[in-house]
């Protein structure tokens, strides 16, 4: 027995180039066979959904749509250290740092803050490495079941601080919840 005739996978098939008979050349049997498969699927359960009207249920552990956190006093945690951008495998994050002014102490927690913080949602792969790299607990992938909304413009997918920073009222509510406990 030689190696060519052994089927290691068990799926080896011999292919032949034998001439078809007249009946086979008519393809009648083949067409009926194919139609039968099509009709069979008409009565089966559908696997697709009508997307924009119907939405699939998200997994309870779904993490998407980043948020830049504020602390209990409502100050932004992010200090623009650049570690999220460094760890990002898709190179989706860019930022620009600025020095905090004396009258901005209630806005930013550290001496330095991100004046521009942008995530390109077309590039982001939601791997969560930014969250893991962050030394200040600033960036999080939220459990909100929001996907990146569809749009016609590429610019709309570059999320700036206006879309990423945690709203102030959420921060206030978090602080109240923490105090209550």
């Amino acid at each position, binding site marked *: 027995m030689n190696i060519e005739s052994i089927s290691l996978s068990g799926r080896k098939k011999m292919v032949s180039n034998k001439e078809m008979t007249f009946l086979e050349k008519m393809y009648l049997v083949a067409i009926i066979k194919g139609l039968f498969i099509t009709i069979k699927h008409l009565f089966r359960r559908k696997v697709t959904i009508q997307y924009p009207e119907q939405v699939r249920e998200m997994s309870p552990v779904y993490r998407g749509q980043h948020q830049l956190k504020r602390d209990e006093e409502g100050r932004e945690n992010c*200090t*623009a*250290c*650049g*570690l999220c*951008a*460094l760890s990002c495998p898709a*190179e989706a994050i860019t930022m620009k*740092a*600025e*020095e905090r002014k004396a009258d901005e102490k209630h806005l930013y927690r*550290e*001496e*330095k803050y991100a004046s521009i913080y942008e995530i390109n949602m077309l590039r982001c792969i939601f791997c969560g490495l930014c969250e893991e790299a962050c*030394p*200040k607990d600033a960036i999080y992938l939220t459990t909100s079941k929001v996907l990146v909304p569809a749009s016609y413009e590429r610019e709309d997918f570059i999320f700036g601080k206006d879309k990423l920073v945690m709203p102030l009222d959420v921060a206030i509510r978090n602080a109240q919840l923490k105090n209550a406990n």
Partner: protein
Amino acid sequence: MKVTIDGQEIEVAPGTTILQAARMIGGESVPPAMCYYSKLEGSGGKCRCCLVEVAKGSEADPRPMPKLMASCVTGCQDGMEVNSKSSERVTEARKSVTEFLLINHPLDCPVCDQAGECDLQNLSFKHGKSETRFIEEKRTFEPEDIGPNIQLHMNRCILCYRCVMVADQLTDNRVHGVMDRGDHSNISTCISKAIDNEFSGNMIDVCPVGALTDKTFRFKSRVWFSKPYDAHRNCPTCSGKTTVWMFGDEIQRVTGRKDEFHEVDEFICNGCRFDHKDPKDWVIEGPRKFEKDSVINQNKYNRKLEPVHIATEDKILKGREEDRKKISMVKIPLSKEEEDEFKKGNL
């Protein structure tokens, strides 16, 4: 004189210190140094990071030295045997020294401009613990303005005295120094004077931590985001050989060229460092290379990329000879060298 460091023999001239001998060998057995700077006279012996074990004093007196020695200030003797990386005692001692240095050092690497090229960061990465045992409050100082170009963060200082030696040996009158004693000792100028000497900017380069940083670069970028290039200009006061850190067309900062031990090759003047931020002022020589595991190398592709050569897959990778013809931009011919490489299938 013959010295053995971690089992590696080297012939050195009399008067060489153990640290210098270890640096000649290079590699893993080079002790870390926070205060020693080969270009500054009298530096070393303060930080105790470079402690090594002398297993055999010399050929004449083969007894081992009872205590660990600071390798930057201990001279080599003929037949000396030194254990640096191979000694358990040394590793333990370096761990303790790192812990001591970090007692008063604030954990503000995310804010600090030195992060990424900081000696203390490297040291604690290699020898430090991930948690702290220090529960007391860290020593803090009032922020002080020491001039228009240099930013002083006294909280980060580890009192290595390098900047004092730069001011002593490079500039003609020193206006700053270490004030007070013990826990209160701090770098300060005499009666709030501004440091404005033409070579004072070198303090930034010699500072092993982020205590002295460039004010013109303050919070502009992180070191690993800008691209370092070797550049030179015709400077009347210094050699003009620098590293420029660029982001796009913008020069974000200018530093001296640092070697593998993070020491500058040549000190540069403040004119080059702070005032010439126009790319037109500089002749760019090429990308600056850093050690393999430096964070500065992130997202930069300045290493030469060799094609992978697997003998059995030669045909698959390079294709058949008859298929090899230029398809894109046929009108533009390849240069001679390019054509050879192209024929071999490397382009």
